[in-house]
């Protein structure tokens, strides 16, 4: 039971990191990034491949964040000139491109067969290692959350929120929105890359089918349920997402013998979707309230 809870905690924390990245990009700045999973994947593969070459884990984790941030740079340069809706489409395309590249570059990623035997954090599969991993990722979440809070309440935060509200007006006042948007893209992607590294070294096996667009949209759901533009909302929303995803497993006990395993998986997804619909209907500002009501 402890192992199960630790596992849920670690995956929830991975989603906290992903959601914090989106909170910075969309919640504060208004950038619609539908390709978050691409940066998550880059971080996961970067850290896994480096670690398997014998690179120490702290270094491979840092590299994961750096690779994701660097990947965001050219994408930002090109895509940030586009209108908001086109930007969303380009990022979605980016996420899928990363997945396709991982699938086809077999020499590097072993394609659909995936990479097994990735070194785990704290060297083991026992409960102690899982708890230590949980502590490490919780610490990473806390540091990231505090950093985001500092940003949100700073002059930088004021400018990115101004971008979200009216970019043209900001230009008229002598600020260059592109510079800020690029930094936000890179920093948010670094968080996704870091999340990927934790994920890779916890699951210990990577394959392209783990990096489908659904991952991006789970993070979006977490953000919306928690409260868009709130750092605390990202944390609460990711926890809530996990509650729905895992809680619905137990639906099976309520519907004994009526549904098959496959039907159950669809039911779970349906339940999560229903939760999101109910949230947007009855609590559109999210659990923690969003940036419009402070």
């Amino acid at each position, binding site marked *: 039971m402890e192992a199960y809870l630790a596992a849920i905690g670690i995956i929830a924390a991975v989603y906290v990191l992903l959601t914090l990245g989106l909170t910075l990009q969309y919640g504060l700045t208004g950038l619609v990034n539908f390709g978050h999973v691409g940066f998550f994947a880059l971080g996961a593969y970067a850290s896994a491949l480096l670690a398997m070459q014998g690179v120490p884990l702290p270094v491979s984790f840092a590299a994961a964040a750096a690779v994701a941030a660097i990947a965001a740079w050219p994408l930002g340069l090109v895509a940030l000139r586009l209108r908001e809706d086109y930007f969303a489409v380009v990022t979605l395309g980016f996420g899928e491109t990363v997945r396709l590249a991982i699938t086809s570059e077999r020499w590097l990623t072993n394609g659909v067969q995936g990479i097994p035997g990735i070194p785990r954090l704290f060297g083991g599969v026992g409960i102690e290692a899982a708890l230590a991993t949980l502590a490490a990722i919780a610490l990473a979440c806390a540091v990231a959350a505090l950093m985001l809070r500092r940003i949100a309440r*700073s002059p*930088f935060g004021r400018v990115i929120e101004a971008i979200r509200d009216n970019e043209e007006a900001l230009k*008229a006042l002598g600020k260059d929105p592109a510079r800020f948007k690029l930094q936000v893209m890179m920093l948010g992607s670094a968080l996704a890359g870091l999340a990927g590294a934790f994920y890779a070294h916890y699951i210990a096996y990577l394959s392209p089918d783990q990096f489908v667009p659904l991952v991006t949209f789970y993070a979006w759901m977490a953000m919306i349920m928690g409260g868009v533009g709130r750092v605390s909302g990202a944390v609460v929303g990711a926890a809530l997402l996990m509650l729905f995803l895992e809680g619905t497993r137990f639906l099976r006990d309520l519907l004994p013998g009526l549904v098959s395993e496959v039907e159950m998986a669809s039911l779970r997804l349906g339940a999560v979707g229903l939760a999101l619909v109910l949230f947007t209907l009855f609590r559109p500002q999210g659990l923690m309230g969003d940036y419009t009501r402070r």
Partner: protein
Amino acid sequence: MSLLIRDVSRSFGGFRALDRVSLEMPADGLLGVIGPNGAGKSTLFSVVSGFIPADAGTVSLDGRTLDRLGPAARARLGLVRTFQVPREFHHLTVRENLMAAAPGQSGENLLGLFFRPGRVAAEEALTAAAAQDVMDFLRLAPVAGLPAGRLSGGQKKLLELGRALMAKPRLILLDEPFAGVNAVLVQEIAARITELNARGIGFLIIEHDLQALSRLVPRLAVMDRGRVLAAGAPAEVLADARVREAYLGGVVA
């Protein structure tokens, strides 16, 4: 030390919005531009502030040509515009709107933010004090903590002016500062503009409200169909036969 607009043209499709427009004013002067709808006033503003490129002609400030600079770069040189329909940062408070406009803040740099917190905090205190001064001057202090989206139309116009002031302007391009503003506030805004102009800040003002504008500015230019018909002292310009025909015909005469 002047703003020089020379032979500026701009077309949209087949429509010639600006047709070799030339205007000149001292950078610390006060010039009004009037004209009927579609005369090209707003296009002129967008070209001068760098939001729309001109097809031909040149805009320069103090002899430096601005034609290749974007809006942000022009604003940093002191040429700051406002918008006809206020573009407040609606989720930020009035105070935050003003503080966001202050130039050169080291807290806008992520490295500065995390590695020089002392300097950032000291600058923030100065920026907050400057914002307070602007709010006192424009009588916005009572709504300092309100999200800007909840202000009245007139208050939003004042906020637009306030933000421009925070950006350390030399010359402010005001786009219809009196549109949709009640008569009392019109007087108020006009008085503030006069006061700021006396302190050395220039104003180029587009306006529909001919009465208010001709009382405010010593020089007036009249535009019609993309051209400048006449420019000079308000009384002179308004007496001009072409102006009366083109613009005032059925409206004021």
